[in-house]
């Protein structure tokens, strides 16, 4: 004989209601958050994949932020390099004019001194507190400003006086021969501007440029050091003309200065062009990396969405189904409650 106890009739519908209500509550939270109500429970052992995707997302986002910094630094570098090159070009044409018109002039001397000041300030620019031409030594202003008491100026004075026994502003400098001048310029004067000696009096910059990891494993140099060859050459040429371009020098000595300065500036302009090309390559690399990063980031978002996200259309359908089921359960429960022999006993 089939026997059904009264508690089991009601308990079935009671459990059914509880089950449907708990599913409905999950579905509602999924609708609000867009992800599974309990992601860990749904993914189980695949959870580490989600964690890995999120780790990658975080790392991509960091590279993107870092690249913004690198981009700013590189474009400021380009602006500075442009201004330095323009000044150098106009100084070169002034030198050419001077050499064809027969000698150094006071205006050329002034030009040299102001160009040196302009280059110093261009190299000393700071972008959000960082001296961008300082190499990795970004906390210190890289180039010593050329003033009468500055170390770079006094070193030149000392070298000159030890070579010729007089100061470059003295009238006795007029007796210096072209050959002596030439050997001084290529000797003790030039040695102050070699890569190893430049940091003694002229530059506090580090020769190590800032390198940035622009995407995972891809590291490039994203700054230019003030110790690079063209800056040394230009400093040398500007200082040379500023100091030894006076009218107190003899014409042979002046010609030696002019020739040395011309060759230095033209070589510096070539080197600057190469340097700028390098910066341009770095800019392209950063922008390419950014494009790749944003594509990767989109792919990762899609993957995260595919793993943890719920399909909103499916969800609304299932909510509707659950509501129907709940309604049916309520109605059946109410009907069953009415069905009792007690109601028919008079």
């Amino acid at each position, binding site marked *: 004989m089939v026997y059904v106890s009264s508690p089991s009739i009601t308990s079935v519908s009671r459990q059914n209601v509880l089950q449907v209500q708990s599913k409905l509550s999950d579905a509602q939270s999924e609708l609000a958050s*867009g992800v599974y109500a309990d992601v*860990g429970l749904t993914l*189980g052992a695949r959870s580490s994949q989600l964690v890995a995707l999120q780790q990658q997302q975080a790392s991509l986002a960091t590279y993107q*932020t870092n690249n913004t910094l690198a981009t700013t630094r590189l474009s400021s570098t380009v602006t500075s390099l442009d201004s330095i090159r323009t000044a150098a070009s106009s100084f070169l044409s002034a030198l050419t004019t001077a050499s064809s018109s027969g000698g150094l002039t006071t205006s050329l001397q002034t030009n040299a001194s102001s160009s040196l000041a302009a280059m110093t300030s261009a190299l000393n620019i700071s972008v959000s507190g960082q001296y961008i031409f300082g190499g990795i030594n970004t906390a210190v202003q890289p180039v010593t400003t050329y003033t009468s008491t500055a170390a770079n100026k006094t070193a030149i004075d000392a070298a000159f006086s030890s070579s010729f026994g007089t100061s470059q502003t003295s009238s006795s400098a007029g007796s210096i021969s072209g050959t002596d001048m030439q050997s001084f310029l290529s000797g003790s004067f030039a040695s102050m501007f070699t890569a190893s000696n430049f940091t003694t009096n002229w530059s506090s910059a580090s020769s190590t440029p800032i390198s940035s990891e622009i995407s995972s494993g891809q590291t490039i140099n994203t700054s230019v050091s003030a110790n690079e060859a063209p800056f040394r050459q230009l400093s040398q040429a500007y200082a040379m003309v500023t100091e030894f371009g006076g009218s107190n020098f003899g014409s042979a000595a002046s010609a030696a200065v002019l020739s040395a300065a011309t060759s230095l500036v033209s070589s510096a302009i070539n080197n600057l062009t190469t340097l700028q090309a390098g910066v341009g390559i770095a800019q392209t690399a950063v922008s390419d990396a950014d494009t790749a990063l944003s594509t990767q980031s989109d792919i990762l978002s899609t993957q995260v969405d595919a793993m943890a996200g719920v399909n909103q259309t499916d969800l609304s359908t299932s909510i509707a189904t659950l509501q129907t089921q709940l309604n049916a359960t309520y109605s059946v429960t109410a009907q069953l409650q009415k069905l009792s022999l007690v109601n028919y006993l008079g």
Partner: protein
Amino acid sequence: MGLSTTLSIAQAALQANANQTTVVSKNIAGVNDAGYSRRIASLTTQADGIPTVTVSRSSNTELFNQLLSSTSDAQSADALSSGLDALEQTVNLTSSASNSESSTDKTSVGTSPAALLASLTAALTSYAAAPDNTALGQAFLSDAKALASKLNAASTTVQTVRKQADTDIANAVTDANALLSQFTAVNTAIVTGTATGADISDQQDKRDSILTALSKDMGIVTTTNVDGSMSIYTDSGVTLFDRKPNTITFSPTTTFADGTTGNAVVVAGIPITGSSSVMPLASGSIAGLTGLRDTTTVAYQNQLNQIASGLVTVFADSDQTGGSAATIPGLFTYSGSPAMPSTGQTGLAAAITVNANADPSKGGSLARMRDGNVGDPTNAAYNANTTGAAAFSTRLMALGTALNTAQTFDATSGAAASGTLAAYAGSSVSWLEASRSTATATSTSASALVNQATTSLSNSTGVNLDDQLSQMLDLEHSYSASAELMSTVKSMFGSLISAMQ
């Protein structure tokens, strides 16, 4: 045969009817009592034609035993599943997934050690890109602190779960002892009742209720003896009750720390839980809680320790000059510094901290993270940045590389045996969620079985109200008939007496 015989049969029928009505009303009273078994009143006619009622109690031993074992299974699965749910707080994958879904803040990846490790890695990359930027250094330091305190907090959570499990075991033991002593009284009543032939249905109901309650605490098997008494054994075969109860003893542990071993549950000198047990309990909440306290949480704690020791190793400071200065804990340190911790050293996740030497708020300096001399700032051998350059990034980039280099972990920890620290932390999340997923599925199906067994047993031994009511209608009819019969006999006697006058 005479009228008086008819009358006495009718009287006996009324008596029987009253007995049957008592049974029906008793059944109706017990309709919603889960422990109540339906009484069946059967009417038998004796040789002299007088009807009598015998009351029996419906029972189904097979279904009842099934209910007991499924209840035990469900309890142990539920204990494990609840414990894992508590451990999931340390990961909280759902909130991290919904965070990244909102996509306003992609750098926030949740609060699990794996997620915080990802944040730390990202902050390190940022700081390495601009080591002269103190704000980025500060961000890196605060991420490091967040990770260290997360490992501390996760470790505390694990030990809290263990402590809670230990307390729950103690409660279950107290409960089981109380049930066994109640059982003694009921068992005696049944033995006496069986001997004297008294109605023992109520005692049997009581006994079944006690067994059902006991099966929640521990898996049990029962045998019934000839005299009606019952013996109870654990599912592993240790005697819990045979004529008299065996006392179950357990001393709870006051505080749990990493490495603390909880005590075993002992029945009459025989341990039924723990590694020393030769007859370990297989089901019931005590078995589930013991598994949680001694296996699952210990494995997870080991994984946290592995992550902690991995961190200390990656951020360790070593001699930069090629000299012989020992490698010492750097940014991440612990009470045992300057000794390096062993892989997964016990208690490391609870003890790991960020070195004060790197923390400006504690008199340290951010620059030491850049230079590589966090562990010992006074020893120049650890300083990688000899020129003191502000944007020196070599050391920070080396840390980034070390963080992304595969390490070896404890292969028995449940998570990956080797891989990067981030991958290990990820596999730990996987381990936790997979265990949780399995435990929840087991728990769900075990409770479905309990429901099924309850329903089957209820259908077999429970009360149907309509059935009882219709029986009552029958009784009403037979009562009317008997009463009618008596009234007829009375009028016949009346006619007879008046005819004689």
